[in-house]
């Protein structure tokens, strides 16, 4: 029995991402759905609030360059050994995106607060960073459990994304998704209202049937839709399954220095020039 969670195409999958949605995406090495990123650009998504868990790279830079992003909450945007993220950098300079700079454990804590249905989560450290003064949604209180007066502590509001969007090795026909030790993907799915996943393959086994596979599986309970997309993380690396397409990413870095060059990259690699069906 194939669940109605299994959809036919990545374009159908991203129909679940409305304009202005808050979308949580994982960092480059955890399972980025570049297939869904391309589909979002093809359907000209607008006004997205990206939450990078806890950083992003090529995915954020592409979405920013394509005009899909209004706000980005992140601990960093970087192409790693390929260098700075050109469209992110340009958008910051131009002031065309709202920045919610954060620090990695603060983003994890905000998602865990949503996962637990609590309005906020405390976090040690961070005080004294200029991040705190620029985040008017963060609060500092005196630790109510302190033995002596004072002891300020940072409180982070829950981050409850509309959508968690990522790529995983496999899902079964019920919509259970195996994510192995990339546990932040499970936190994202628990925290988000909807979870959309591309996978390398859809398998016949029930991933919850044994404790061995269940240990690394997000139950379908949290999964809204799954689409098969082989090599769906390319040109990024995907775990140990395949390496980054270094030539393509280097070409991106070269072209995306300008908005024109960025458009050429999109046309060449993402089918941005083709007529596509808008999702909604």
């Amino acid at each position, binding site marked *: 029995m194939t669940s109605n969670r299994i959809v036919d195409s990545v374009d159908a999958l991203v129909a679940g991402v409305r304009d202005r949605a808050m979308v949580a995406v994982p960092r480059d090495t955890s399972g980025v759905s570049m297939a869904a990123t391309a589909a979002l650009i093809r359907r000209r998504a607008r006004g997205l609030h990206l939450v990078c868990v806890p950083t992003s790279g090529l995915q954020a830079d592409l979405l920013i360059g394509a005009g899909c992003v209004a706000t980005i909450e992140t601990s*960093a945007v*970087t192409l790693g050994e390929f260098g700075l993220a050109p469209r992110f950098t340009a958008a910051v300079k131009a002031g065309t995106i709202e920045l919610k700079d954060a*620090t990695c*454990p603060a983003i*994890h804590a905000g998602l865990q607060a949503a996962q637990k249905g609590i309005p906020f989560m405390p976090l040690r450290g961070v005080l004294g*960073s200029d991040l705190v003064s620029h985040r008017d949604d963060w609060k500092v209180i005196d630790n109510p459990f302190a033995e002596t007066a004072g002891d300020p502590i940072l409180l982070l509001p829950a981050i409850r994304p509309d959508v968690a969007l990522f790529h995983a090795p496999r899902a079964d026909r019920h919509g259970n998704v195996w994510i192995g030790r990339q*546990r932040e993907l499970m936190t994202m799915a628990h925290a988000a209202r909807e979870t959309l996943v591309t996978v390398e393959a859809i398998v016949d086994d029930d991933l919850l049937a044994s404790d061995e596979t269940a240990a690394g599986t997000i139950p379908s309970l949290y999964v809204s839709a799954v689409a098969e997309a082989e090599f769906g993380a390319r040109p990024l690396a995907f775990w140990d399954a395949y390496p980054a397409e270094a030539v393509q990413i280097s070409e991106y870095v070269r072209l995306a220095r300008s908005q024109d060059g960025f458009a050429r990259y999109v046309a060449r690699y993402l089918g941005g020039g083709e007529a596509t069906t808008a999702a909604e």
Partner: protein
Amino acid sequence: MDCSREELLIATIARLLEGCRHVAVGELSPIPGAAAFLARQRDDRVTVLGRLKNNMFTNGGVELFDCAAQGRIDAFFIGGGQIDGEANINLIGTGDYPRTEVRWPGCFGTAFLYAMVPRVILFRQEHSRRVLVPRVDFISAPGTSAPGVYRRGGPYALITNMALFAFDTARRRFRLESVHPGASLEAVLDNTGFDFDRPDEVAQTPAPDAETLSLMRGPVAREIARTYPRFAASLFPDAAEDAKRLTGHLPG
């Protein structure tokens, strides 16, 4: 015995790790990574944590931070677009936030880890007045905290291509410990944008001995080649070739 600048840095950082049990390294930190592997060669109770292949973490991206918060991580490395004389670091950019003239990637986990890991080693190869500034434009993570603010970690040392500094938290100042072979006190003074303490006689950073060099060029090089293949290719070409043959992977 001749050694490269990178080998000097690796050996010097490994000395700074003496007595540490759990050392965490970032993905893009090959020299500190090599230093941590060298420390482990010398003491097999040392564990190297972080975003390595076959890493020890099984609880997702939050685990490094939780682990540090639990007090299980003894040392960590932070770079910095700007570092000032009070050990504040800036990973955001130059100019007025948010529309900074130059924008760097962002703060990563530094604002947290700087406060939680006892021995944070600031590592930046470039030693210039552009990097080592009187006052950072944006404090990604502060070098010190106000009294009463919970903190159990912070800056321990700063190492660059020219010199090694120790940080004195009580005085909120760096102290020059040694100048690397090939550099001079004058060059350090000329290229450092902040004021720092120094002894009357400044020592030279000792070069690694033959045994250390052979550890670095042997087992450490092979471990580095697995995690940082591009770096290894330039520093330890033989080990990198071996690793490439074994994994068939480009870096990712």
